[in-house]
């Protein structure tokens, strides 16, 4: 598996002698490895040209852009290199068949809620928190999902489960500076919301990059509505991993005081965002987290969470090809 490069400061990126060359303000210009790079995250201002994009296409490197606030702006998704007409047809057919789509979408929700429960139960044991009420509600939502009548109803259940689950955040996090109170998105109203928004988008991007390595089309999601304008399958996939990757990371960053009040800034127009230093801390922790490995029980090999995300995409591909029914990844602890 290739590396992910993060370009946090401003500069220029170009193709030079069959490899990548980056020049940044106040830093020594340097070559970047092209063969072992899978994706590049661009946070600062970047000058680039078409010959670079052509080169990245040839090397199958995906480019993600973020705006000034660290908000995801978009992706340079190179021409598909893994083409299979059979998979695309199966994916589209699966989407248009309402019963089959509902089945897959509800399995995704069940997996997502199960992972939320794992997170809550983990901290219940560790911090002896009183969270029985949340756990039993989550269990109820999980049981409701397969019985719901439609995909929009499923989305409703997912929303309710997540709202209930977010109440657990304030019980766990003691620091007043990181109370969430309620989930707000555009713009995030406080530090906790800012952290969640930023890391959720990292999780969506991780899923997108892994889908690029499969034959699936990221525009056709099953839980999230497909409108052929933006990616949605990666949102489906990220639901499974958000509790394990994003939320657990937030708790560890905040509880260990690695991320603090001083790492946030209030912007004109309202909204609290991570500042440059804060973003760097969070990204470093994120990169370490997704590269952590666990032993895969069936593959009998260590797999990183990043690799696990791709294997999750494979599972969806196998499901739509009528190969093996989709069984979501659930954290063991």
């Amino acid at each position, binding site marked *: 598996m290739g590396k992910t490069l993060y370009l946090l400061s401003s500069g220029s990126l170009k193709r030079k002698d069959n490899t990548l060359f980056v020049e940044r303000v106040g830093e020594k210009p340097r070559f970047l490895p092209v063969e072992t790079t899978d994706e590049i995250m661009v946070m600062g201002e970047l000058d680039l040209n078409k010959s670079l994009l052509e080169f990245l296409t040839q090397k199958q490197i995906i480019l993600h852009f973020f705006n000034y606030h660290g908000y995801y702006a978009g992706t340079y998704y190179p021409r598909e290199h*893994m083409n299979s*007409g059979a998979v695309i047809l199966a994916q589209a057919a699966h989407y248009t068949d309402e019963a089959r789509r509902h089945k897959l979408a509800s399995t995704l929700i069940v997996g997502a809620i199960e992972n939320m429960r794992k997170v809550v139960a983990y901290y219940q044991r560790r911090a002896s928190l009183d969270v029985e009420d949340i756990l039993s509600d989550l269990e109820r939502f999980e049981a409701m999902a397969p019985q719901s009548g439609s995909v929009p109803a499923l989305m409703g259940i997912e929303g309710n489960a997540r709202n209930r689950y977010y109440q657990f955040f304030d019980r766990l996090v003691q620091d007043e500076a990181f109370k969430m109170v309620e989930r707000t998105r555009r713009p995030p109203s406080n530090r906790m919301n800012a952290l969640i928004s930023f890391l959720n988008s990292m999780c969506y991007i991780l899923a997108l990059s892994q889908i690029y390595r499969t034959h699936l089309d990221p525009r056709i999601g099953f839980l999230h509505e497909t409108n052929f304008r933006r990616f949605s399958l990666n949102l489906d996939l990220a639901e499974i991993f958000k509790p394990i990757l994003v939320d657990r990371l937030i708790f560890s960053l905040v509880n260990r005081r690695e991320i603090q009040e001083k790492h946030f800034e209030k912007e004109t127009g309202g909204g609290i965002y991570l500042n440059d230093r804060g973003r760097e801390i969070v990204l470093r922790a994120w990169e370490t987290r997704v590269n952590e490995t666990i032993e895969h029980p069936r*593959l009998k090999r260590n797999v990183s969470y990043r690799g696990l995300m791709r*294997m999750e995409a494979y599972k969806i591909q196998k499901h739509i090809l009528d*190969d*093996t029914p989709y069984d979501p990844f659930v954290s063991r602890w």
Partner: protein
Amino acid sequence: MFSELVKVNGYLVQAFSICRRQVWLLARGVTAEQSNESLALGRLVDQNSYARERHQVGFGDNKFDFVQGADGELVVCEVKKSSRAERSARLQLAHYLYDLQKAGIEARGVLMFPTEKKRVEVELTDALKAELDCVYAEIESLAQRNVPPPAEHCKYCGKCAYAEYCWG
């Protein structure tokens, strides 16, 4: 669902004697994980060995690693990273020779294992031709199946670029 007949190429023939599931996946255009280490290594061995030859010579649906010729004789060469799957490599090369013969071109075949400094001559016998005719028929019926053969563990699974796909 698919009316199109599968294009039987060397890759499919090679896969056939290793894993039926791989044949089904390849027939649907579901290729293996490209960043797989073994796969990348194999590609490098092919590219970096016999550097003076012209590699990847297309013929019909096939791609020969390279061809040599002297005194009107054609030699098709297939480069392999190791001789671990020699039987399937032999079948693959025989398939190339068979395809050439059908087009009225007689050729010899050589399997090359540069990392082992080993060469194996392959001759297209009647027995091999009969075996290949069976393989073609089986590949075609396999490709027509709506559902892939379930994953079965074999000695090639460990390093296979589909391992994460099959066992994940």
